[in-house]
């Protein structure tokens, strides 16, 4: 049955596909120096797709379309909007990166991966889910290794591919076991099968562990985080930004849907396992961040730690828990894109990305320094930036669920975080360039950067001050899980 709801449920995906085809057709006709305009086209197209989806494609009552493959609800819709926003920002950040900005295929790959993420957020069936995850991952492998002449980038692409292939094989094995035990691959029917008792707790535990390997890789929780620092460091910076935000959030979208819908609270020991994983993820991520001297590696490890904070909301397994995870991810996407955007804007001009090289940035470009301050303070969880409210909500959900010890682990880790984030700001604001006058080494911003960074910075402040609407959307999304 093909109804208008069927079409509306994949409206954003259709629009993304149309955009991709458009770029595919137009791009060869452009001269080499015009090709960066594909960035404007991608970003503009994605924003238009967001507006059109918001106007016509808002979900009503949750429904399932395409024979149970796709769930059309606010959870998926909100995540789709987030991904598309992140994609638009990333496309703009691509533009003035010489290595990838003038190659039309970079934008195509970005859109292809975005298509996969959108489907990840709405998959209601394990088969669909697996396809979506692979659609997301494969373009990202290519993008990570995009700079063929750069050894680090090639290594990043290859490493990401190997880890991804291995973990997705684990996950696929888990899915096949689920099908074997339950006789269905539909996420929304699994729960009935479990309550019917066709799956023992022990077996379910094993299956969940296998699935967690694949998802843990996507969201980079310890011990599946080893790829993150190398890939983030080697990949082109905007790609790292995209990996650490949209790709991670897509993983969380699946995690939330699977654990809240298909496997709700089937055993207390399972929640405890997740809680311990969350605690380890935060702690290991933060302790490793402390020793980093490269800004991209620092952000990579800190993104591992942030996956740990967000997990607290999953552990809480309550409506507020789900809301707080979604809110956290929204704030985190804006913040980390801003952080990577600033790094990108800086190293595009200077060609370096060690933390030491940021000395004197506040004199070289005060605005860029301020935006970096906003991003890092938000990551550290300071108001009036998004990170603060997001953390408080996650902690509130943790305390509500009785996980006071986990929240204490969380706050100890936030303190470590404050230390290393402020340490970077010390270079930016306090230290001077050795033997140079900063006035002679400005860091100019090109137009795409100026626009993207300004929008992101504004977003980070808005989500941290006027948080009611964001909370409302996150809550609407979380509500569809219950």
């Amino acid at each position, binding site marked *: 049955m093909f109804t208008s709801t069927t079409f509306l449920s994949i409206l954003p995906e259709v629009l993304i596909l149309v955009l991709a085809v458009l770029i595919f057709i137009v791009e060869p006709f452009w001269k080499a120096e015009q090709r960066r305009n594909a960035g404007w086209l991608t970003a503009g197209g994605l924003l238009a797709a967001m507006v059109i989806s918001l106007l016509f494609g808002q979900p009503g009552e949750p429904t399932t379309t395409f024979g149970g493959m796709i769930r059309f609800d606010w959870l998926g819709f909100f995540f789709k909007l987030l991904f598309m926003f992140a994609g638009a920002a990333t496309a703009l950040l691509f533009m003035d990166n010489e290595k990838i900005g003038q190659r039309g295929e970079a934008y195509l790959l970005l859109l292809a991966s975005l298509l996969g993420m959108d489907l990840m957020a709405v998959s209601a069936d394990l088969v669909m889910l697996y396809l979506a995850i692979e659609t997301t991952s494969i373009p990202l492998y290519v993008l990570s290794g995009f700079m063929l002449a750069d050894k680090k980038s090639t290594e990043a692409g290859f490493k990401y591919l190997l880890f991804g292939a291995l973990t997705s094989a684990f996950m696929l094995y888990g899915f096949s076991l689920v099908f074997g035990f339950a006789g269905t691959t539909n996420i929304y029917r699994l729960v009935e099968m479990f309550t019917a008792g066709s799956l023992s707790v022990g077996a379910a535990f094993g299956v969940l562990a296998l699935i967690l390997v694949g998802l843990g890789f996507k969201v980079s929780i310890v011990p599946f985080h080893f790829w993150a620092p190398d890939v983030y460091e080697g990949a082109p910076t905007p790609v790292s930004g995209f990996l650490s935000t949209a790709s991670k959030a897509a993983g969380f979208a699946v995690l939330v849907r699977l654990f809240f819908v298909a496997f709700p609270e089937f055993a207390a020991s399972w929640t405890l396992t997740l809680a311990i994983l969350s605690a380890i993820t935060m702690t290991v991520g933060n302790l490793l961040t402390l020793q980093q001297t490269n800004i991209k590696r620092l952000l990579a490890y800190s993104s591992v730690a942030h996956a740990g904070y967000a997990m607290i909301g999953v552990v809480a397994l309550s409506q507020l828990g789900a809301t707080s995870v979604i809110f956290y991810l929204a704030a985190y996407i804006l913040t980390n894109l801003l952080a990577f955007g600033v790094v990108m804007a800086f190293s595009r001009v200077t060609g370096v990305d060690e933390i030491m090289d940021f000395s004197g940035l506040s004199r070289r470009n*005060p605005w860029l320094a*301020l935006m970096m*301050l906003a991003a890092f303070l938000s990551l550290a969880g300071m*108001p009036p930036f998004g990170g603060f409210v997001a953390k408080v909500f996650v902690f*509130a959900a943790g305390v509500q669920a009785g996980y*006071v010890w986990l929240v204490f682990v969380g706050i100890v880790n936030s303190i470590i975080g404050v230390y290393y984030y402020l340490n970077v700001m010390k270079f930016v604001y*306090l230290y001077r360039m050795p033997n140079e006058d900063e006035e002679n080494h400005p860091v100019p911003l090109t137009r795409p950067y100026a626009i993207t960074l300004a929008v992101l910075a504004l977003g980070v402040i808005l989500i941290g001050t006027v948080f009611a609407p964001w909370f409302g959307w996150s809550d609407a999304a979380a509500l569809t899980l219950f």
Partner: protein
Amino acid sequence: MNFPVLSVITFIPMVAALIILMMPSHRRNETRAVALASATFALLLSLWVYFSYDQTVGGYQFVEKYNWLPALGISLYFGVDGMSAPLVLLTGVVMFTGVLISWGDEDPHVKAGIQDRPREFFAFLFLLAGGVFGVFVSLDLFMLFFFYEIAVFPMYLLIAIWGWVVTREYAAMKLTLYLFVGSVVSLVGVLVMYWTQYKNTGVLSFDMLVMENAGFSQALQIAWFLPVFLGFAVLGGIWPFHNWSPDGHVAAPTAVSMFHAGVLMKLGAFAALRVGIMLLPEGAKYWSWLIMTFAGVAVVYGAYIAFVQTDMKYMIGFSSVSHMGLVMLGLSTLNREGLTGAGVQMFSHGVMTALFFAVTGMIYDRAHTRMIPELGGMMKIMPFAGIGFIIGGLVSMGMPGFSGFIAEFPIFMGVWQKQWLVAVIASISIVITAAYIMINIRKVFFADLPEKLHGHVGDITVLDKVAIVTLCILMVGLGLFPSLMVPMVQTGVENIIRLLGGA
């Protein structure tokens, strides 16, 4: 709806910070002028709030409430009572004088005040000020917390960028970590209180007036009082968590020292009172002996350490620990006299210590040393600063006729009722304080001018004098006319006594 004066006070500095950031960096004097104008405006508004607060009615006045996130019961809920109105005024005064003394002198030989990137300096300082105002006027616990954190992090930048080169990195990081640890520990306690209230009453609200009636069990109050109270009291410089404070004072630039000692430490004491004592009164009664012990140690120990310092800023920093110990001592009595004294002491100490740091900064900017043995004869060079410092010293010693007396006397009365031994021991600090203040005044202001300082030390600027006179007027005025503040604080204390269940 009346004029929303409290939200205007809170957001004026933040808006000013934004405007200042938008200005081109080479328009230095224009930047300062905008800063001074907005500080003056905030001061006038806080004066208006203070003097139009109706003491006969008491309670929370100028109340404004806007729903912010109804789903979790978070609202922008502002109001002042007899306890917080003086602190709002204090913040206005310190902000105003802080801008005045940061203006400085562009003359490269003098280089007083803030000459490096004044635009960023004032922007961060005002963000801090906005956070401080927000804490003092918030009646919503979430928002109190929000503003509290806003008041913490600009300190790092202000100290690390404009501070004393030798220790600034160390001190700034130490301060930030101490304060952040304290605040997040309190946060956990606050969240526990929030959910317990929900369990008890079914109301989801961060409104502190609602939380007062949440019916927390005695066990919960006893278990969570210490984390909540001490978490905030870290910022109040309570012993043994005071260590960050003198280091921070010493490393900070003058205006930030004034803010830090004058206002920020009050923020800690105030939040500890508002959240710790007022929301968990049973816990406060149970643990009052411990707080009293900590405070008693702080009073004597702080004074003694201040006595042996040779660096003026360290001396004042430790004297702040000692005086804030008196505030904590007053809070720990949980009786009318002690709490009233603590309320007045917060104001009195804020003004006094701001003055001390201002004068010390003026001397350091011109003599390039703060070491007491290397200084002398300042009275002839900068008589205004000298007279200001002497008046501050008299306040510090608790001389009758100055604001220190009307603050410390009730505190000792309150402590005596509770535990006379503590009062006796704590009163030793008055003697030590008198000793180090007088030694300092004699050496720095009246001894001969050392050879090294001949010639190049000049007088302070007109703006500096305005700042000193403003602060002195407040201290003498309050000393001569205690009725300007004491009855107001008492209305606030009545409310606390009611919550404590006492008559």
